[in-house]
């Protein structure tokens, strides 16, 4: 079992796409594997025939265990029943993280090659310092390419390695038990934690605990944004690619962040990284969890681009086909529960980001007008910003929120 994401410790073999006896080429998809983040493809790392499948579908396998053998047709799999590679057994095959230079030669493998590679038992060559840093930072050394003597992992390599990727803000549907588990006489149902649920639990506990959160709420008049949206969609007409409120909000948040760099930052223990680029994480509820795909450089994209990209990312998030680089690296996040008729809520910060805005529903409300002598009905939106007080102070967050409010209340301001 290859580690298919930076934080993956085990994977559930969802489906074999190749079967015993099939010819396989290096790079062919062998199986679909559910990781802590997504369903991903497990690919062959050698040419030959799929001799033996070691793991039935639906089984959860720790990273490093052998899931199948590839070899020459007719070849017997030595020690097939055991995870140990005995004296006669072939060496473990190449891992995803193994240097390309060491990739197997194109010639058919002379002996069966286990489709595994990285095993927890495999000794990782790493300096004592790199090991300590990796341990603290949660970096899996097996996934890091070493640049030291003999491919040894050194400090530099670990520092450049991706940290465990953030999952997402709270404020999303909780994992549901089987919907039809009504009163069957059983008082409760134990649902094992899925890979993604485990990650959410770990990540969010690491957020609300140590991060000093505070919350700022403002109510925004969306009348003009709604008019603008209607006009734009009318113009787009049948060409498709309609613009949603969410797209407008993401764009406004990104532009407001450009003006308030202090909020577009990562808390990094001994320093704060203020981002110049704006990458907006967009919390997407998916079956059994949530994930935050990232719209990169959202400040530079137009509404149609943001709309198309967010729909595409959300679609793939729901079918759990996001690549790790598509859900990591956000500089600020947006969580929208408007579609669930939630007026207002607070979202949990997705570390190392320093802030997230929680978007409620747009609801018509009576609002005093003309100095308060009459009431008019306007479409209003409540936005709550969660701030990491280690990075953002009250006034800093408030200033950002005011800019966001101005942009949404007067969408033309976004052109400034």
């Amino acid at each position, binding site marked *: 079992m290859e580690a298919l994401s930076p934080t993956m410790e085990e994977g559930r073999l969802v489906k074999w796409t190749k079967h015993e006896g099939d010819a396989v080429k290096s790079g062919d998809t062998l199986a679909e594997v559910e990781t802590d983040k997504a369903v991903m493809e497990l690919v062959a790392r050698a040419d030959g025939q799929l001799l033996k499948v070691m793991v039935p579908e639906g089984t959860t396998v720790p990273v490093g265990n052998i899931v199948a053998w590839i070899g020459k047709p007719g070849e017997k799999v030595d020690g097939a029943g055991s995870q140990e590679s005995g004296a006669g057994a072939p060496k473990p095959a190449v891992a995803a993280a193994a240097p390309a230079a060491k990739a197997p030669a194109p010639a058919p493998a002379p002996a069966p090659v286990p489709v595994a590679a990285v095993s927890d038992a495999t000794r990782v060559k790493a300096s004592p*310092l790199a090991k300590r*840093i990796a341990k*603290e930072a949660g970096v899996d050394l097996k996934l890091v390419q070493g640049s030291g003597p003999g491919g040894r992992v050194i400090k530099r390599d670990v520092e450049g390695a991706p940290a465990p990727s953030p999952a997402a803000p709270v404020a999303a549907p909780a994992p549901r038990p089987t919907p039809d588990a009504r009163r069957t006489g059983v008082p409760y149902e134990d649902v094992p934690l899925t890979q993604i649920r485990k990650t959410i639990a770990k990540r969010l506990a690491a957020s609300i605990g140590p991060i000093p959160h505070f919350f700022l709420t403002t109510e925004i008049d969306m009348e003009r944004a709604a008019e603008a949206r209607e006009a734009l969609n009318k113009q787009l007409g049948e060409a498709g690619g309609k613009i949603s409120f969410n797209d407008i909000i993401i764009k406004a948040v990104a532009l407001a962040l450009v003006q308030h760099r202090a909020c577009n930052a990562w808390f990094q223990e001994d320093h704060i990284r203020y981002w110049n680029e704006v990458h907006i994480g967009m919390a997407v509820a998916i079956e059994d969890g949530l994930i935050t795909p990232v719209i990169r450089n959202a400040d530079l994209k137009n509404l149609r681009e943001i709309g198309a990209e967010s729909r595409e990312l959300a679609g793939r998030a729901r079918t759990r086909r996001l690549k790790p680089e598509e859900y990591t690296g956000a500089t600020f996040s947006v969580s929208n529960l408007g579609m669930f008729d939630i007026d207002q809520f607070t979202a949990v910060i997705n570390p190392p980001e320093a802030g997230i805005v929680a978007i409620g529903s747009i609801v018509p409300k009576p609002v005093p007008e003309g100095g308060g002598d009459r009431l008019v009905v306007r479409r209003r939106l409540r936005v709550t910003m969660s701030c990491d007080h280690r990075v953002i102070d009250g006034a800093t967050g408030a200033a950002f929120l005011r800019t966001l409010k101005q942009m949404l209340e007067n969408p033309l301001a976004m052109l400034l």
Partner: protein
Amino acid sequence: MLRPYPNEPGSFVANQFDVIVLGGGPAGYVCAIRCAQLGLTTAVVEQDKLGGVCVNIGCIPTKALLHSAYIAGLLKESKDFGVDASGVKTDYGIAMKRSRRVSDQNSKGVEFLMKKHKITVVKGTGVLQPGRKVKVGSDVHEAKKAVVIATGSRVKGIPQIGLEINKTTVISSDEALVMERVPESLAIIGAGAVGMEFADIFNAFGVKVTVIEALPRILPLEDAESSDTLNKSYRKRGIEVIAGAKVTKANVGKDKVTLDVETAGEKKQVAAAAVLMAAGRAVNTENIGLKECGIQLTDRGFIKVDKNLQTSTPGYYAIGDVAGPPMLAHKGSREGVIVAEIVAGQKPHPIKYDNVPSVTYCHPEVASIGLTEDQCKEKKLDYVAGKFPFSANGRARGTGETDGFVKILRDKKYGEILGAHIVGAHASEMIHELAVARENEYTVEEVDLAIHAHPTMSEAIGEAALDSLGRVLNI
């Protein structure tokens, strides 16, 4: 075999090599040996003796003289050890001649190494030409793969304040290393490694020495505690040290120099029979054809190189002092090895420039690697300093060399050895345990886990590591 060179009528290519190294100092000759080991035909162009400044007028002869100084110091104190050596006389001329023999042996050793590796040594001054060619006299040599510039550096005076080296009253290490008799008194300008080593030597040979340093403390690049410890030791021996001092004017007479020195607003006059200039070195980049080959310099006058030590003109590399600081022989040698391997198509591990040990061979010796405590503070690193004095070390007490300490700066979070500083006898030898540790990214725990023999000075390293963890045993 001579053959006409098509592009330049009238000029002949005397010889072709894979690599031509300009300069036979510690960077150049090591580069040549490594090239030869890798099967490249190699030539070294040297205008003087092989081995460069290091072997002939630098590292090696000064170490010979410092040992003479050490013996003189030892004998002064020997009565207490049950050895009465009263009436000991010193003679600088004899010590100097011995140091010359040591240098000559080393230079001959380099000559032998060149022969052993079938490296052609071209005597003369080389000038670079475009097309990877080096002109020596009327001969033009051509390098098929690379030309390596390793022309080194030289002592520089400060003519702006009237201190131009005249080789009699204003001298450099070049003259100090060949003088027959010592002057009665000597002012040394610059308290870096060179200045401090000569202060040690001349003090041992009975010269009244005054060291003048512009920066606020002696050995300004070392840890402040190392500077302080050495300062005390020097003062105890009667060497005057004036730090944070500016020489505003120099009056150079026939057999006397008077210096106007300003320190902390105070004005002072220092008179000495001679002045030794030990404030910095100038790189040898003039008249070697750099401009003609399009090779650029940095703002500070070093040859500009990329991470592969290649200059702005492909096919020309620079190593050693000309390629930038630190201007140390061992750094140059390693660059020589790296360039040889790159030219041979290998991918050598790059130098960690923050892991080049720095050593001053005065008594007590000062050695260091990595960051100083002040640098840790400037970088706002979260560190712990572990320290162990030699006064608490059994071996040091036995030999009566209790001056100094070992200090290890440990990163609080991961235990990384951010820097290490040793002042004491044999510090120059002991620092390498920490160089190996840092190069391999051992943390202080690994240093402690390595068992240190008892009784040794090196035990102080293990103890300093423990001290940084709050677990020091013998203090």
